[in-house]
């Protein structure tokens, strides 16, 4: 917010001349402050105070209407950015993030160095944050908000926890008020008190929170994103801007991923390229593969098409500093051995073609023909996105579905209204007007009566009488009359549904 108000001067030393900033939202039918900057805090303003009261205390107050959606988006963006430290990032309420850094800290030179790195980078991004590393999520939460320590060793947990106020235990407001009324102001008081009476009086949540803070009870974090099964990452000293370089790097990373894929005997179906820009913006580019892949060149080729497709959305700005390639979904890949006949596997080039197409035009682009058992022509045949390339190539047993003869080669998705004249009301048409041209019919075959499918459409749908007609120049069309004359309708309409060869 400061950045929007003051432009780039937020980086300067000291605070620009500006009245204190507070955020207000409507709570309990009154405008109350929900967030305030340090300057406003120093004036004695408090959270939960009425906006009018605050204005009375400080007339120059800059009150901004709270926007929870924007806050949320900002926190999500921050969580994306935190992906650089660990894949396990969980959102915590409206203003916090949990990072599970198990096994990650040594990559950054220890826990203390990790915290310093997080805070200094966030400061450079213009964000004031507090971070604590401890053995339990509850303890970190408490100390980050009410204490002052960066790294807490497991054995120090109780010592650090004791002087903190009970509000640090993530309890409902009423419970906190109740505890304070009976004089239990600090967590240390609770630690010494017998557990049974506490549970009886304040509920089991208090004890649960207490145990969680001490690390006695397990608290599962729910990460925002699933952890990729395989990933490889490259941190760059010099930011990358060029698409070519990104691709080249992606190819190198695919080589790394390939090793671990091969070790597990798997191939990736869904890949993700994560690009973190210098200013903290995160881009995720996903690419599907038609068959399980573990070939570096093929993986890189997926992203070549994908990058071209998203070219306009990908704003390199000052360049990307971290590039990570992850495998989000993988399948078993049986290693294929080339046989002596020298015939290459035919599904591979087709799969590569399907991948290229899907990466560029979306997964629904390449379709294969499907047949359905339905009387209505528009339901009987259609196209579905191709998911398994092997079905097209392989010689799987063909399930012979009964397919009616005399169906047109091309069909209109929406039958087109024509004006037709027939000799007898129930008979075949003599001539019709279609797309502003008159056609005189030389021969006609029909009718083929197709009733509506009442179990899908419900009753009352008109029956269709299909005629196969040929005009005087030899064009063959498929016309139908909607509704039975006299029984269902008095003035049936004619439609053009398809053309024959």
């Amino acid at each position: 917010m400061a950045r929007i108000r003051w432009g780039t001067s937020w980086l300067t030393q000291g605070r620009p001349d500006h009245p204190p900033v507070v955020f207000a939202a409507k709570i309990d039918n009154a405008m109350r402050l929900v967030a305030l900057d340090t300057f406003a805090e120093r004036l004695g303003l408090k959270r939960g105070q009425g906006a009018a009261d605050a204005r009375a205390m400080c007339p120059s107050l800059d009150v901004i209407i709270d926007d929870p959606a924007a806050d949320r988006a900002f926190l999500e963006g921050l969580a994306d950015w935190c992906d650089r430290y660990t894949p396990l990032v969980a959102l915590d309420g409206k203003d916090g993030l949990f990072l599970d850094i198990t096994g990650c800290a040594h990559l950054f030179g220890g826990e203390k160095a990790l915290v310093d790195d997080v805070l200094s980078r966030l400061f450079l991004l213009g964000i004031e944050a507090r971070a604590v590393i401890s053995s339990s999520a509850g303890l970190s939460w408490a100390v980050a908000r009410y204490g002052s320590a960066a790294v807490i060793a497991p054995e120090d947990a109780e010592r650090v926890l004791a002087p903190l106020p009970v509000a640090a235990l993530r309890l409902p407001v009423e419970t906190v008020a109740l505890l304070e009324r009976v004089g239990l102001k600090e967590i240390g008081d609770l630690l010494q008190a017998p557990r049974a009476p506490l549970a009886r009086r304040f509920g089991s949540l208090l004890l649960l929170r207490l145990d969680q803070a001490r690390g006695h009870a397990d608290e599962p974090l729910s990460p925002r994103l699933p952890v990729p099964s395989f990933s490889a990452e490259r941190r760059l000293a010099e930011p990358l801007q060029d698409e070519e370089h990104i691709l080249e790097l992606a190819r190198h990373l695919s080589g790394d991923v390939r090793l671990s894929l091969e070790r597990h005997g798997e191939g990736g179906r869904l890949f993700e390229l994560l690009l973190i820009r210098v200013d903290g913006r995160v881009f995720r580019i996903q690419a599907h593969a038609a068959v399980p892949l573990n070939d570096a060149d093929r993986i890189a080729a997926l992203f070549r098409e994908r990058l071209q497709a998203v070219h306009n959305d990908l704003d390199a700005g000052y360049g990307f500093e971290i590039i990570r390639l992850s495998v989000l979904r993988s399948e078993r890949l049986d290693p294929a051995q080339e046989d002596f006949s020298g015939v290459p596997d035919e599904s591979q080039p087709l799969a590569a073609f399907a991948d290229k197409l899907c990466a560029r035009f979306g997964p629904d682009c390449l379709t294969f023909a499907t047949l359905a058992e339905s009387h209505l022509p528009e339901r009987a045949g259609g196209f579905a996105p191709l998911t398994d390339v092997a079905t097209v190539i392989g010689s799987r047993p063909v399930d012979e579905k009964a397919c009616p003869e005399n169906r047109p080669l091309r069909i209109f998705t929406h039958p087109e209204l024509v004006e037709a004249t027939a000799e007898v009301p129930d008979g075949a048409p003599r001539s019709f007007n279609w797309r502003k041209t008159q056609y005189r019919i030389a021969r006609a075959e029909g009718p083929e009566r197709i009733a509506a499918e009442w179990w899908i459409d419900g009753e009352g749908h008109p029956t269709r009488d299909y005629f196969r007609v040929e005009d005087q120049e030899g064009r063959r069309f498929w016309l139908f009359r909607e509704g039975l004359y006299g029984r269902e309708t008095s003035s049936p309409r004619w439609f053009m549904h398809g053309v024959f060869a």
Partner: protein
Amino acid sequence: MAEKAVQRETVLSLRETIAQIENRRLPGVVRAAKAADPAGFRRQREEASRNKILPLGVPPLDDVLEGGLPLAGMTEIRNAETRDAGAAAGFVTALAVLCQRRKKEKGHLAPVLWISQGLASREAGFPYAPGLKSYGLDIERFLFVSIRTVKDALWVAETALSVPVFAAVILEIRGNPACLALSESRRLHVRARAGCLPLLLFRQAGEEEASSAFFRLQIKPASAGERPLPDGSMLCGSIGHPAFHVLVEKSRAYASADIFLEWNAHDRRFYPIDQSVASQADGQSANSVDPFSASVGRSNGADSLGNLLAYARAS
């Protein structure tokens, strides 16, 4: 003597290159020189050239096409008006069926890829699976791509031509878009030749335009025959096998004007139909013989004014 032989070799190879660029058959001298090679090589070459052609089984058409449909390269099939798209689609599909069957005889179950500009399939209708199946196509191996712009469709076609598994690639374009001019068609043609795939450029409602295709055929609708009855007579007033009226617009051979065929989906092959019967059925086709003399080695008939294409503007 040795010098002469080298010169002769150079000339022959140059003539062969020229013939390849012009999509011509090898000149007689070159062929004779090649035939002088050891027997093993010659047989293989002959087989290779025979492999690149798919006879259609209709003698007049095969004569014009110099043996049949070229299996490595581009063939253009167009229809004059949108309402004739059904007939042209039928002819294109029939060619695809033949290509697919040929691959099957060799033991490959090859898919057919149909790339369609979105506008084209909306105007003339989408391919309809039950119809294609009863037409003889292996519907399990039919892939369809609908693409919004011509440029993207060309990209897909070019990519597909490098995939050796397809039996045929059909590229359906509506009209004469500027981004499919002579150079682009040349590019597609070269790709198709390199990939040894038949590319059927299906130009819907398009004008006659210079292109690099081997042949250009215009398909017009023709009245179908009648259904045969078991006793050998015909069922009066019925509509039998689909029939086509093929006009060869570009070919190297002497172009005969009209060829009438019908497609028998059951036998999966073309049959010639008697022209007099066909022209009796509709009176107009008798007049459709081109009044100009047929030209050899270039497109049939002179372009009307303002239709000259593939020339740079003078001003």
